């Protein structure tokens, strides 16, 4: 069976009060910082269940 094509995110109308460059950089910086902080989190020491 073939998978349906995914919906595509479309840009909104209008220019707004923030420049495109500043907005793009801010979103990128904040997103990357969050992803990095998740990666740096120490892994849980709880032992994983093993099949007996």
């Amino acid at each position, binding site marked *: 069976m073939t998978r349906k094509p995914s919906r595509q*995110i479309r840009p909104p*109308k*209008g220019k707004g009060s923030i420049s495109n460059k500043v907005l793009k950089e801010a*979103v990128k910086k904040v997103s990357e910082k*969050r992803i990095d902080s998740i990666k740096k989190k120490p892994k849980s020491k709880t032992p994983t269940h093993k099949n007996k």
Partner: protein
Amino acid sequence: MYNNNDYEWNVFINCPFDKQYEPVFHAIIFAVMDSGYIPRSAQESSDSGEVRIQKIVKIIKSCKFAIHDISRTDLSPEKKLPRFNMPLELGIYLGAKYFGDKKQKSKNCLILDTEQFRYQIFLSDLAGQDIRSHNNEPEKAIRCVRDWLSSLHPELQYPGGKEIYNRYKLFLYDLPKICRETKLSIEELTFTDYSRTIYEWLKLNENNH
């Protein structure tokens, strides 16, 4: 004139603009964008030279789809009168659908209220329309919007309501930091700023939840 290509994806959001409703409004904008549609609102243009009703008519004409929230029926504490803007704009939209050309006749809308059958008390002529309730909860509003929008272009694959809501929570977590970076407070974000921020954020995070 409306852009022919966008008509198929434009969604007019007709809802209250007060602070109390804002969490539902913002969740609806996010759900519209994460479903691949373009949110449109009377708030998007600051052209003060244009008469408000003309601006609204122009936007309605350019939107095939619309979300009308008729939940704000309370009397204002000072004036003791209800707001009639939402039912008026719903009426204009339905008028375009029934009296317009072939393209306008293809219009399709979602009507939202806090409770499913409450409209029978104050807007009984709406009987026969599909009315969904969100109970003033952003998560429910997202599900209603996503389920409706995904039925309009069924040839496409859409994220589920829960996935969109989880992504929305992540966006809300990032938003204050994005605002700090852009030197704007959340309260200062216009409808267009808010939609553009969602767009840029979704481009980077659409696979995160």
